[in-house]
């Protein structure tokens, strides 16, 4: 099987090289009207088919690796270092991307899969798809070169015969979400290669009009959705596995995934300006270029060890290759842009500061500022070492001070943008649209203060974190204001539909959304993001406490009473574990039993380390988050750390709404349905003289009228 996998990868590389060369040649010949021995259109078709075949070859290689894992073929070096006989099958599958070589193969396979779909759907616009396919094959060649010559997933151990058992999988990765988090993240990363290829291709061929944007919109949204899911799954994994009570640590690798998400979000917004008003063409092209470049940079950061990260298990000297690839991509983008920049001339310009275009522009600016902050914070230690000879730490306090105000500004724009009209907004419209959200903000602020959210309170002073409380208060109040604005928008539209159709409000809202899925799906996404922001604001009110818990011991925290019922140990072929059984009471009533656990994976000799299994009792109000930290060596009593994390569930609920909204936005809107209605025309001849050519049914000269049957966009 390792031989089969290696040959498949070589074949995939050869096919990708052919796709690139034949595609380039044929497109050059077509663009310049040159004749070749074989018709350029035929060469283009062979390039497309070679691209499809390369997907089959990479799939075969991926299958060979899966096979090696499931058959415990420890003669394969990669399998030896990332699996063991005792590892459950579930995790054997996820082991495939637990290291350098396998994750690069996953990247290559996903890219091939995206390329496969793109090449299958080429009839939408054959020439544009040919350009995109050729560019995509260029990216594919880079990754196939890596897995063929630099990071070999099928390398055989010295001597050709492996040991009886493998080193096992890193315990931190033995968690259900780890089976799905990396593929989701990679689907997002790799997915952005497709709009990048379309944008670069459209620019190279000087594509007339904005249709390429419509073609790529769904690709971009799908990539964005996958990246969103990947990031959130990573957050949830960090929350449930790492046991430090949080979900986002501003680790460089987390940051690397956030950066393309931010620029991708900016692209999805600003692209509307190009579609509607022919503006920001150059800007949009660069946004998608930068998004793709950032996905490569993210991979570089993960792989190179350039910055310190908890993802250090993926480090190697492969970073140099990524640097060169990054330089090449940037050079191609810059050259193509400069060569064709006259094609990107705007048809319209911004006319007013108080307009939808302006809000999009500021939205883009804030998203880019957020992206810059994250990039700056990630790379500043390297810069500091270069300038002052010593590294600095850019921890959560830095990001909290800088990124949180930027995030709140973004939240503000989320509410303001949709309320402004294209071109310019009248003062009267501003007054009318903003009254309700402003009232909601004021009322929420008052209610929160009455409810006890008081940044100036003694409790906040004691915790030394007044700033966070202020931000949280502003964020929640602003969030409620934005939700009010979104609901008002839905109601306003639904009322119009209700007036037209007589349907009730719910049916009118559904019909309204179906008529313009993109707009109202977008509002739902905004709604989900606001819910997430409110959830994030809850972290300002986190509480924690550490305690030794013997039989019958109890503690009170955040309205919960936790009583220790027992603590014990267990063992299985994969790990040893210690755990405690804790009964949780709320208002004197037992609500659940939690079992925080600490495991030591003794099979694993390559990455030996203990791992925590956090126990969480979740509600919409807060999470009771319990970590088994270890035992006191003096008396063997378990040391348990308790956290009260308010509103964390809102983050996960918000994500579900974002996903739902994205699906709505991806659904095509209802189209105009027409019905043919025959009415006698004043010019119509006598009905007794029917035209036999028309089957005797329809008189020549009759006027077919279209009557709306369904909703109209």
């Amino acid at each position, binding site marked *: 099987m390792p031989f089969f996998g290696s040959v498949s990868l070589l074949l995939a590389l050869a096919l990708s090289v052919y796709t690139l060369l034949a595609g380039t040649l044929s497109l050059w010949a077509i663009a310049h009207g040159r004749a070749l021995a074989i018709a350029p259109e035929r060469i283009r078709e062979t390039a497309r088919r070679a691209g499809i075949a390369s997907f089959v070859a990479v799939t075969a290689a991926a299958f060979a690796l899966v096979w090696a894992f499931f058959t415990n073929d420890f003669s394969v070096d990669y399998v030896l270092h990332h699996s063991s006989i005792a590892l459950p099958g579930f995790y054997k599958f996820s082991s495939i991307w637990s290291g350098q070589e396998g994750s690069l193969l996953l990247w290559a396979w996903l890219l091939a899969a995206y390329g496969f779909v793109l090449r299958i759907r080429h009839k939408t616009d054959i020439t544009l798809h040919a350009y995109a396919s050729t560019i995509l094959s260029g990216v594919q060649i880079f990754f196939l070169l890596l897995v063929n010559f630099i990071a070999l997933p099928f390398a055989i151990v010295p001597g050709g015969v492996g040991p009886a058992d493998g080193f096992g999988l890193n315990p931190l990765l033995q968690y259900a979400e780890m089976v799905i988090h990396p593929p989701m993240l990679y689907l997002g990363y790799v997915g952005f290669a497709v709009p990048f290829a379309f944008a670069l291709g459209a620019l190279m061929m000087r594509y007339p009009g904005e249709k390429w944007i419509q073609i790529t919109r769904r690709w971009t949204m799908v990539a964005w959705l996958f990246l969103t899911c990947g990031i959130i799954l990573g957050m949830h994994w960090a929350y449930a596995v790492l046991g*430090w009570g949080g979900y986002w640590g501003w680790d460089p690798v987390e940051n690397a995934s956030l950066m393309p998400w931010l620029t991708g979000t900016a692209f999805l917004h600003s692209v509307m300006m190009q579609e509607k008003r022919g503006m920001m063409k150059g800007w949009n092209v660069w946004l998608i270029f930068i998004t793709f470049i950032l996905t490569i940079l993210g991979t570089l950061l993960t792989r190179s060890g350039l910055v310190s990260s908890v993802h250090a298990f993926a480090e190697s000297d492969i970073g140099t290759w990524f640097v060169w690839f990054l330089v090449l991509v940037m050079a191609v983008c810059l050259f193509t842009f400069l060569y064709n920049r006259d094609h990107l001339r705007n048809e319209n310009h911004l*006319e007013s500061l108080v307009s939808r275009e302006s809000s999009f522009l500021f939205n883009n600016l804030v998203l880019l500022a957020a992206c810059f902050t994250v990039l700056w914070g990630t790379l500043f230690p390297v810069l500091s070492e270069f300038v002052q000879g010593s590294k600095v730490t850019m*921890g959560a306090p830095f990001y909290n001070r800088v990124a949180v105000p930027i995030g709140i500004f973004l939240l503000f724009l989320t509410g303001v943008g949709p309320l402004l009209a294209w071109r310019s907004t009248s003062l009267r419209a501003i007054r009318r649209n903003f009254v309700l959200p402003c009232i909601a903000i004021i009322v929420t602020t008052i209610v929160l203060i009455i409810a006890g959210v008081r940044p100036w309170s003694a409790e906040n002073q004691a915790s030394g*974190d007044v700033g966070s409380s202020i931000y949280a208060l502003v964020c929640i109040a602003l969030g409620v204001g934005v939700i009010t604005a979104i609901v008002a928008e839905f109601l306003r539209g639904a009322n119009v539909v209700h007036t037209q159709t007589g349907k009730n409000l719910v049916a009118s809202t559904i019909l309204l959304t179906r008529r313009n899925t993109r707009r109202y799906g977008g509002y739902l996404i905004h709604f989900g993001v606001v819910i997430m922001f409110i959830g994030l604001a809850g972290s300002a009110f986190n509480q924690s406490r550490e305690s030794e818990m013997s039989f019958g011991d109890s503690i009170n925290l955040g309205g919960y009473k936790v009583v220790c019922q027992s603590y014990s140990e267990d063992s299985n072929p994969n790990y040893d574990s210690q755990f405690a059984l804790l009964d949780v009471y709320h208002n004197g009533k037992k609500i659940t039993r939690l079992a925080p656990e600490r495991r030591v994976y003794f099979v694993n000799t390559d990455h030996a380390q203990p791992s925590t299994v956090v126990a969480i009792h979740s509600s919409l109000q807060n999470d009771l988050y319990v970590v088994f930290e270890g035992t006191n060596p003096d008396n063997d009593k378990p040391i348990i750390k308790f956290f009260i994390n308010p509103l964390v569930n809102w983050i996960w609920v918000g994500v579900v709404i974002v996903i739902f909204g994205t699906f709505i936005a991806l659904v095509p809107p209802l189209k105009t349905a027409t019905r043919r209605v025959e009415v006698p025309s004043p010019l119509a001849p006598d009905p007794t003289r029917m035209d036999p050519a028309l089957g005797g049914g329809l008189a020549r000269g009759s006027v077919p009228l279209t009557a709306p049957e369904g909703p109209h966009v």
Partner: protein
Amino acid sequence: MYKRALQLILIVFVAFTMLGASTPTGRFNRLGHDLVCTCGCAEILLECNHTSCPASPGEIADLHAQIDSGASDAAIFKFFAAKYGPTVLAEPVRGGFDTVAWIGPFAFLLLGIALILLLLRLWKARHARLAPAAPEIPTPNADALRDRIRDETNYGE
């Protein structure tokens, strides 16, 4: 009126930001969250959850001692940076080149805002120069009419 409101907002903002530094516990919590555990876990000092951590108890003891000695925040950070290395500080607060870390993002944002305003001004000026003088529309309340049109057509597009 607006000036008064602005002054009030400023006073409230300053009051809020000045709060929190007054109690010793508050100061310990605040400073403890500006330092990193040096055991290699990269956690914030007061959030390190490792049992028998070799580093955090010593750092916490040092922090208590420094606060009790009445040292200023800057002096405490200097002490920690000298004893444990500059990476013990969770954010760049040593002054000098460290300040650049704080200026960078806000400079980017401000530069961006200035650029947008400048572009808007240029575009408006060019628009006014190139566009022919439009005849005055004899509509008594064009804004109201435009709003009504938008209201009635906005639902589907």
